[in-house]
């Protein structure tokens, strides 16, 4: 199944999107990792500095970013497992399409409860 995307001059398949998603999520997680190491380095300045830094992360926009991070990590993990399986057992390419769909569907399904849990402190139904 192919469909048109804005700014792309050709039909894009789900397989291409799955591949692009692997790169995009990988770069996203790497950028977060660089930020996370800097944030953790404030531990070296003692409790006041570290605890103040942590308060900067307790708000809705950051939490939405963390949910996006979780989605990127879940997708990258599941798609990475598919890559490993198909690279080491090439006969599984017979299930290329269902496996790719399975990765996308599993990510969406896993993110439903995870998003609800992570959003709870900032949501209307939260504490």
């Amino acid at each position: 199944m192919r469909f048109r995307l804005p700014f792309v001059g050709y039909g894009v398949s789900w397989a291409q999107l799955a591949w692009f998603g692997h790169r995009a999520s990988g770069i996203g997680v790497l950028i977060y990792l660089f930020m996370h190491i800097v944030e953790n380095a404030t531990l070296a300045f003692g409790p006041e500095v570290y605890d103040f830094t942590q308060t900067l992360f307790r708000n809705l926009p950051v939490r939405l970013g963390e949910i996006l991070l979780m989605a990127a990590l879940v997708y990258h993990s599941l798609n990475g497992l598919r890559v490993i399986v198909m690279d080491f057992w090439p006969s599984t390419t017979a299930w290329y399409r269902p496996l790719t769909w399975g990765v996308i569907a599993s990510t969406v399904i896993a993110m439903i409860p995870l998003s609800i849990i992570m959003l709870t402190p900032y949501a209307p139904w939260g504490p």
Partner: protein
Amino acid sequence: MAGSRRVWPVEGDPLRRNPSRAAQPRPAQAGRERVMWYFMRISGLLLVLLALGHMGIMHVLVQLTGQEINFAFVLERWGNPFWRGYDLLLLVLALIHGVNGARIIIADYVERGGLRALLTWTLFGLGLVWMLLGILVILTFDPNGAPAIGPFS
């Protein structure tokens, strides 16, 4: 998926050469590129457990149990050598895995030459500095609670 006619793998199909359609098929010759090809898959397997476990604990379980991440939390967590070793292994594997992935993406989009070399070496330089910073923070943290034992105090 209408009609379950099997269309692949067929002769000459890219799927046969690069079954998973990952960034690159397994390099034909032995050498650095092939070592990194295996490293990405083996570290990836470990990172599925380490990184998802880390996120599951720090972003889901901590909240479900009503805890808060602050200095006291880190004191307790890194007082345990298991969690300190876990975080160190996660840091080293994730940073190498991520930097190598970014290197492959740069090589895919930037022609061989000066700009590619500049971007790649900048990436390696940043990766090395951040790796040293991360290792230093984990190893020099004093779980006995004396504050400000960092390199700048």
